[in-house]
């Protein structure tokens, strides 16, 4: 049995002999169509449901005379086969031809195969199935179908699948090539060949494959990958390895290359997972909320006979070890002992993923899903990380009691992780690359562009902002600019560091002029907004603090509002009531856009690229028109100068204004629900528009505009200089909106 290639006929013969024996099972197998679901079920239940494999004594007796000649007890067949073939590949079964080609495991090239527990939990079960099914299939396929050999239960043809994937690796050139990972890659060369080269140089044997690329290359292959990841990915592995070792025969890797597909477009949202996704390749996004300790999972148990020191290895089958009861060598019963430190273990970790807040419908609690990470992926993510996970969705029935036949009618579900992708690092205004694609479908972009062509877009936008707040168009415009943000200029080469792109705004004015409401609105509008009140916040609450985790004795940096609103807007209400020391923290944030921390042995600089929208009451709570602006606000100059725009929100006290105000307010009280819905839609549009503008449009100051600016700046005095500064940003951003054309 150990050399399958040489003994196909014998093997087949033996199979036939066995296959005919338990007639019930065969008929059963034949009846049920080979479906996906069935195989999962197999994984946990074959043992109980099919009498043959679990009852070794029966097995021992059952093989008819001719069988006994060459096959040792069938039980050992099971355990022996995986040792000799490439276990990570299902192709071993029922496809003698592919086996002859040589799975890389054969050790010729000296690179050990590493098991893929992320794919493998079902492996064994299928093997059993195929042994029983095998004969029939072998015969038919070899005799009549010839090349049309497919993996049992799927429509995947191994050879062609492999060939296609190799072609993909060798030929695929990324037409867009905008990903950040592409640094150092030549866009005109096949992308994944360069990746392989990288693997050769770095020695990290993982090949990440973007499913999107695969899809644009070969739709059918992509579909197969999504539907039958368990079969297709090992095929990919094989293909990748063959190419790799053809090109770099001398390369030494820790183990063979494993292909890790990611960005499967199948599913985006945890909520939309449904039973149809079981056993398919999915990608979902979410936030890690808990990760377990590392769990060593036994992959191969090592047994040694106490009598004759004969050793044998047993594969773990669904968490159970089939302990050999008889020593193969000396035939002593119950002499085999498990040797722990010679057994093989793999790392495993359970991770809980929670829906990201953006994906959730209002008024519901987030869903969670369990992930199993294996080997290298263990400890790749920490609680709090936002990740995109690609993996295989699994469902396993729960058995009430092993001795009782009734089963809890509920399945446990989890995802075997194949690929993690953190989304934290690159979030542009809360819209990361992935969601961006989601939000901005073609029509949406079209709509937004359409919108931007309107001449009065600026006014439109500003009036769409907080429609319940009456007038104050200027302020709304200001805030709008803040939302768009300036362009981030990098002056690092001149030694100045980053030029601040964010605009800080101070609203100052009479009580009851809906400043707080405006702040609340902005906070609700931007994805990464933080809202604090000056009175309640301490310096620590705004910045960051260090705590010691009671369990791990680890120092943990807890971030405050300013850091959390990195790339967003931090709204601070009651700015005037903030105490002096707290306010001083803002100095660094508002100009340098960073935050330095030196606490409890942790010294670091955090990014706080946040715009600040603050609201303050004048010093005498009522605006005193007799005093100057500065006197009225009574904030330190140093801080005041860091605000680009200062708006006064005053009660204008004129009749026409009052009239309009009254009308506006009353309309609030009797407008119908539908109209409100409409306005709400506008909020969504506005949000998209801003996100779109921020991520795609990079304005430049035109020569002409620059000239007018310079004139403006030189003319004005200090008080007006502030405003001029405001104008500066004003133009930058107006330029931006204009550029949308």
């Amino acid at each position, binding site marked *: 049995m150990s050399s399958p290639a040489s003994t196909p006929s014998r093997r087949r013969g033996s199979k036939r002999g066995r296959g005919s024996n338990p007639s019930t099972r065969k008929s059963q197998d034949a*009846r*049920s169509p080979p*479906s996906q*679901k*069935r195989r999962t*079920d*197999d994984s*946990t*239940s*074959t043992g*109980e*449901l099919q009498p043959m494999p679990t009852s070794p004594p029966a097995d021992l007796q059952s093989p008819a005379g001719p069988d006994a000649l060459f096959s040792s007890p069938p039980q050992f067949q099971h355990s022996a086969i995986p040792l000799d073939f490439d276990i990570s590949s299902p192709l071993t079964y029922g496809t003698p031809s592919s086996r002859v080609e040589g799975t890389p495991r054969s050790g010729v090239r000296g690179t050990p195969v590493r098991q893929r527990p992320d794919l493998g939990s079902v492996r064994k079960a299928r093997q059993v199935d195929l042994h029983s099914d095998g004969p029939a299939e072998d015969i038919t396929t070899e005799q009549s179908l010839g090349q049309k050999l497919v993996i049992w239960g799927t429509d995947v043809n191994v050879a062609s699948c492999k060939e296609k994937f190799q072609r993909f690796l060798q030929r695929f050139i990324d037409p867009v090539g905008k990903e950040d990972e592409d640094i150092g890659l030549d866009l005109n060369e096949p992308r994944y060949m360069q990746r392989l080269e990288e693997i050769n140089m770095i020695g990290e044997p993982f090949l990440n494959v973007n499913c999107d690329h695969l899809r644009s290359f070969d739709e059918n292959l992509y579909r197969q990958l999504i539907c039958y990841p368990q079969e297709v990915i090992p095929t990919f592995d094989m293909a990748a390895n063959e190419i790799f070792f053809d090109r770099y025969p001398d390369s030494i890797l820790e183990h063979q290359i494993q292909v890790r597909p990611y960005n499967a477009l199948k599913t985006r949202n945890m909520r939309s*997972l449904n*039973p149809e996704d*079981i056993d398919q390749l999915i990608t979902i996004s979410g*936030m890690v*909320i*808990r990760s377990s300790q590392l769990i060593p999972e036994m992959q191969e148990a090592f047994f040694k006979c106490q009598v004759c020191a004969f050793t044998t290895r047993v594969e773990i089958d669904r*968490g159970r070890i089939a302990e050999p009861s008889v020593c193969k060598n000396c035939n002593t019963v119950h002499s085999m002992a498990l040797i722990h430190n010679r057994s093989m273990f793999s790392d495993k970790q359970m991770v*809980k993923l929670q829906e990201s807040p953006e994906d959730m419908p*209002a*008024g*519901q*609690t987030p*869903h*969670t*899903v369990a992930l*199993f990470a294996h080997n290298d992926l263990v400890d790749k993510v920490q*609680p709090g990380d936002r990740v995109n996970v690609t993996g295989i969705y699994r469902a396993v*029935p*729960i058995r*009430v009691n092993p001795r009782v*036949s*009734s*089963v*809890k*009618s509920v*399945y*446990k*579900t989890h995802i075997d992780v194949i690929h993690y992708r953190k989304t934290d690092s690159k979030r542009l205004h809360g819209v990361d690359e992935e969601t961006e694609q989601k939000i901005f479908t073609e029509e949406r972009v079209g709509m937004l562009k359409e919108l931007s062509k309107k001449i009065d877009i600026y006014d439109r936008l500003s009036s769409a902002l*907080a*429609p319940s707040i*009456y007038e104050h168009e200027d302020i709304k415009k200001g805030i709008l600019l803040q939302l768009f943000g300036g362009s981030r200029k990098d002056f690092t080469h001149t030694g100045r560091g980053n030029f601040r792109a964010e605009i800080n705004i101070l609203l100052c004015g009479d009580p*009851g*002029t*809906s400043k707080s409401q405006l702040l*609340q*609105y902005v906070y609700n509008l931007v994805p990464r907004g933080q809202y604090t009140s000056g009175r309640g916040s301490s310096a620590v609450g705004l910045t960051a603090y260090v705590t010691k985790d009671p369990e791990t004795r680890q120092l943990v940096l807890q971030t405050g509002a300013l850091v959390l609103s990195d790339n967003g807007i931090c709204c601070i209400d009651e700015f005037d009531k903030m105490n002096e020391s707290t306010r001083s923290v803002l100095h660094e944030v508002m100009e340098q856009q960073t935050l330095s921390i030196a606490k409890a042995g942790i010294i670091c600089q955090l990014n706080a690229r946040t715009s600040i929208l603050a609201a303050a009451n004048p010093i005498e709570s009522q605006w005193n028109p007799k005093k100057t602006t500065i006197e009225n606000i009574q904030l330190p100059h140093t801080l005041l100068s860091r605000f680009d725009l200062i708006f006064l929100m005053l*009660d204008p*006290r004129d*009749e026409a204004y009052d*009239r309009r*105000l*009254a*009308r506006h307010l*009353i*309309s609030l*009280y*009797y407008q119908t629900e539908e109209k409100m819905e409409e306005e*709400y839609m506008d909020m969504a549009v506005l949000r998209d528009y801003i996100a779109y503008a921020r991520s795609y449009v990079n304005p430049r100051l035109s020569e002409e505009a620059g000239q007018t600016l310079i004139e403006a700046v030189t003319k004005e005095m200090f008080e007006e200089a502030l405003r001029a500064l405001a104008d500066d940003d004003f133009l930058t951003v107006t330029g931006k909106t204009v550029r949308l054309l």
Partner: protein
Amino acid sequence: MPCVADWLNNPFSIVQGIFAQNVPNSDWEKKVTEYFKEKLKENNATNWVPSLNDVPVHYLKPNSLVKFRCMVQDMFDPEFYMGVYETVDPNTNARVLHFGKYRDVAECGPQQEIDLNSSQTVTSERQTFYCVPVPGESAWVKEAYISASQARVSPSTSYTPSRHKRSYEEDEDMDLHPSKQKEQHTGSGGDIHGCVEPKRLETEASAGHHLISPNCSPPLDLNFPLPGEKGPACLVKVYESWDSFKVNDVLEVYGILSVDPVLSIVNNEERDSSTLNPVESMDTAEEQRVHSPPASLVPRIHVILAQKLQHINPLLPACLNEEESKTFVSNFMSELSPVRAELLGFLTHALLGDSLAAEYLILHLISTVYARRDVLPLGKFTVNLSGCPRNNIFTEHIYRIIQQLVPASYRLQMTIENMNHSRFIPHKDYAANRLVSGVLQLASNTSLVVDETQLEQGQLDTKGVHNVTALGNLITWQKVDYDFSYHQMEFPCNINVLITSEGRSLLPSDCQVHLQPQIIPPNMEEYMSSLLTAVLPSVLNKFRIYLSLLRLLDYSISEEVTKAVEEDFVEMRKNDPESVTADDLHRTLLVARFLSLSVGQTTLSRERWLRAKQLEALRKARLQQQKCVNGNEL
């Protein structure tokens, strides 16, 4: 009625029948729901269904049809189950199809095995909600529901629908000694009736005090939002359109009760295996405990029909849009003004003869958030009743009166200790994977009476500050930010907050009314308690209908009146630009709205507007006066 008994006591037989008839296609599920919908539509059929709210779980027959009036406290992850499965008899090889819907455990005969590989197996999805009885539900609501119920639960037992609710400790005790359970019941049957009444009253009265003395760690925290609450919590399994339900929604569900003891066994088994093989179990022990508690403590209901309730007032028809309920509404509207007058008189007495405060209290009680503009909730009307006597008795009795009038209420005593130690904001416990409830997790239209007279000087710690902030947010924006530790999530709510305080409250409020007692009763206690006993129950019921009904009415302002109001405002601003602001207009409009509604008018009329202005003027004058008094004292 054998038919009724059948679908009530053994709904599975019905489902099985429908299932067997329609098996190959999947529309049997639809037919089942239709069947039960029809059945429940029959006259008063809903009253025949025993309610988990008033019948203890152990009196109910497992697998019978029950109803449950509850609030969604938490939503668990959706689960996949075997919608249809096949069993096989190893001996005869006979195959039988079963349905897994409405079941926790896939059943099969003693000689059968479930064929997990069958091609017939259908995997489906369902969602589990963790539901608790409506927090703060008033006693009269419960009583009214019970008296309406005609359910007779298994007449063989000596059950009478008493309101005895055993605590879970007792329950657990009994589970341990199932043999003892019987005798204990027969033995205590007599005194159940005897002791229930005072016991219940006591718990209500001391509901507030429970806050101070937190429950001495019960074996299983049933996660009620309010401390000192009793009643069954339930895992409600929803099979369709679960997306339409939200946290804090009040539901009435009809479904099949499942208290299979096997469920508890599952627990133990898994816990055992988890110690042996950590790989097998994905969940921690706490999570297990929370998500599959013993069925005797937290029963499961497999929902056949579920509907959101507009209100939980038993005196009103459940759905106001139906034809028959319209006649009810119009009948009631015709006698509206005497009811209002009576209620005003009653409240005036309660507020020590202050009719203005009573007027505002009515407005407050019928207020509800009817819409939201961006972040701004419209229709909230938080009243700060200042100038309350400092002793506990007055505020407590005010609360008791409100409790008698509204279907759900809670009295929050604002003491330093309370603020620092109680849990206001619900937060997510990731270890157990559940939303740990807090005081502010309340259903819509719950009356929250914040008693600030209890507040002494002292230091608030971090938690206290958070709690006060949360309370402030609740009042201003009508939303609560639930704490998900990595982020916060906003849950809009609709809670009527009444603040009683001595001076101006430290919490924000929409309008402050200073109490001016006309009479000072020598014995406050006596005076206040005599008030409630003096009111006839029928009158009290009218008050209750009045308050619940008016809240649900529509309202509009005509173009004409808009103009008038506009003119008015401009005029006011001209005369007194300092004191009249947009906020005033907001408030006056609100007052006008509720004033119109309180007399049953659904549009604003000129008179009402003037009356609203007048009320506001009176109120302001009082505040001014109060300020002067204080100023003089200083």
